[in-house]
């Protein structure tokens, strides 16, 4: 730690709050306009090569897979990915050759499902560079700082460890207690990709189940692309406006994509496709298998709907809904062990 309490991690996604205010003023429309578009157009328009990208959801939960596959399909390159418990999403993006850098809270792993063959391969052979380390709470509070338009957030974790030494945080003396405290810098992703349960054509969105980091992340990201299980009438939003977790002025693009989180879980709606996840974890053990996966499921199909047909179509999707609805029992007969 330097005298200024600085560390060696690269500062990713930070902007001077005044610079970001100016950017918001000029680029985020406060007009309630129809933002419906296509997955392909949204990715083309808002995710240039080299972008700093964050995904809503967590692990294998509520991951915007239609958008993820489209990034691969459009052969996006040199992305820096925010590794905030980035699991299936970052794995697919690394396998697809889209990623050159990751800031890591949690990446290259699949929780209970084990480590990520292709993610680990990429970082161990130097194809993907880790820009720095951070903790989950630290990352989420970087989003909170950005959402609030302040330059940093105080945090009492990471202190004293190598995690902070390889982070972009700083340590100062708390003026009240006199104790050292960690400050994490605001993080404004260039673009965040979300999949939600329902939203209107303007982007006012509702999410069921846990919010994870998405309240803060939606407000921190400069651009926000939302796929949704269903586009609902604005009147439905108006009926219970307190259910809106993402107001329209944060949203740049809206696309209706039923089952848009497959093979990950959409809370209270459909369960993981454990077989497909296991298949990916299996084939991605080799570069060849990885390549074949993308030929089959991304380049081999025109769009996400065709992908859904390929992975099992209505029969499978109906089953995954039943597994979710009928849990715990139905679920326990099809879960992880497959």
């Amino acid at each position, binding site marked *: 730690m330097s005298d200024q309490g600085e560390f060696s991690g690269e500062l990713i996604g930070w902007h001077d709050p005044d610079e970001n205010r100016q950017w918001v003023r000029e680029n985020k429309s406060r007009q309630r306009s129809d933002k419906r578009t296509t997955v392909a157009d949204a990715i083309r328009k808002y995710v240039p090569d080299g972008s700093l990208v964050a995904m809503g959801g967590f692990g294998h939960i509520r991951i915007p897979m239609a958008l993820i596959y489209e990034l691969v399909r459009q052969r996006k390159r040199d992305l820096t990915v925010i590794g905030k418990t980035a699991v299936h999403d970052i794995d697919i993006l690394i396998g697809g050759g889209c990623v050159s850098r990751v800031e890591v809270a949690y990446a290259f792993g699949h929780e209970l499902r084990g480590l990520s063959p292709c993610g680990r391969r990429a970082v161990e052979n130097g194809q993907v560079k880790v820009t720095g380390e951070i903790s989950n709470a630290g990352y989420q509070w970087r989003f909170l700082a950005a959402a609030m338009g302040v330059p940093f957030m105080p945090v009492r974790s990471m202190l004293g*460890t190598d995690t902070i030494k390889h982070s972009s945080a700083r340590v100062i003396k708390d003026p009240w207690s006199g104790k050292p405290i960690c400050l994490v810098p605001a993080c404004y992703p260039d673009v965040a990709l979300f999949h939600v349960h329902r939203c209107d054509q303007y982007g006012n969105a509702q999410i069921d189940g846990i919010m994870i980091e998405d309240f803060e992340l939606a407000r921190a990201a400069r651009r926000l692309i939302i796929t949704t299980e269903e586009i609902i009438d604005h009147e439905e939003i108006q009926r219970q406006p307190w259910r809106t977790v993402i107001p329209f002025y944060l949203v740049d693009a809206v696309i209706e994509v039923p089952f848009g989180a497959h093979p990950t879980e959409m809370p209270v709606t459909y369960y993981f496709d454990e077989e497909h996840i296991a298949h990916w974890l299996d084939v991605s053990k080799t570069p060849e298998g990885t390549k074949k996966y993308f030929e089959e499921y991304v380049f081999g199909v025109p769009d996400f709907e065709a992908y859904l047909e390929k992975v099992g179509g209505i029969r499978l999707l109906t089953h995954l809904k039943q597994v979710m609805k009928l849990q715990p029992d139905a679920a326990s007969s099809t879960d992880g062990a497959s």
Partner: protein
Amino acid sequence: MTEKLRYNLTELLACVAADLLKDGCSVFVGTGLPLVAGMLAQRTHAPGLLIIFEAGGIGPQVPVLPISVGDSRTYYKASAASSMHDVMSASQAGYMDYGFLGGAAMDCYGNVNTTVIGDWSHPKVRLPGSGGANDVSSFCWRTIYLMRQQSPRTFVKKLDFVTSPGYLTGPGSRERAGLPAGNGPYRVITQLGVYDFHEVTKCMRLLVLHPGVTIQQVKEASEFEILIPDDITVSPEPTPEQLRILREIDPRGMVISK
């Protein structure tokens, strides 16, 4: 262990871990063995155990073992389905009694590495990183570690990387670094036994041996010297009732069959 046929190591560890959790307390868990232990405690001596998940699940009646920390089952019939901000804030504010973590390697002060094996910039093996582990070990009052592969390569003198804080460099060093006061590693459970940390030196100390394990095995399975007091107890073996409940919790043996 002559009991091999009646229970396996994972079942033993789950029961040992469950016994550490007091009723009416809160525990911050991930999935896997820690959650199995929490669910077991809840279904035996600690029905009032408050189980909390990083992604926002608060006080669920977990039906069967979730696969992911964000799995819908982590807030099945829960008191609240909130956010990471809410759960991490409550933890930082002192509401979390126990934290449950694993680790690839640990030193004598209970510092843990889950980031890299080898050099950080050119790792031999890249591990997932902190995730919420650094936060859990910083915020929770008592952090319990489950490491099923104690060996001189996992109980090391010097970690390649300190991902999450134990007692750092010894007495008072957590506080000097600015971490919350008065908390830290509480127990370490391995395939050989259970360890705590010396009140004064904060160095790891043997507390309990699993059935059939010798002190010699414990010593041989560590690069650093483990304090060995005179009075060592032996872990109770899983009861048939505990084993029955474990199979109820993890019917497909995702965790306990390992």
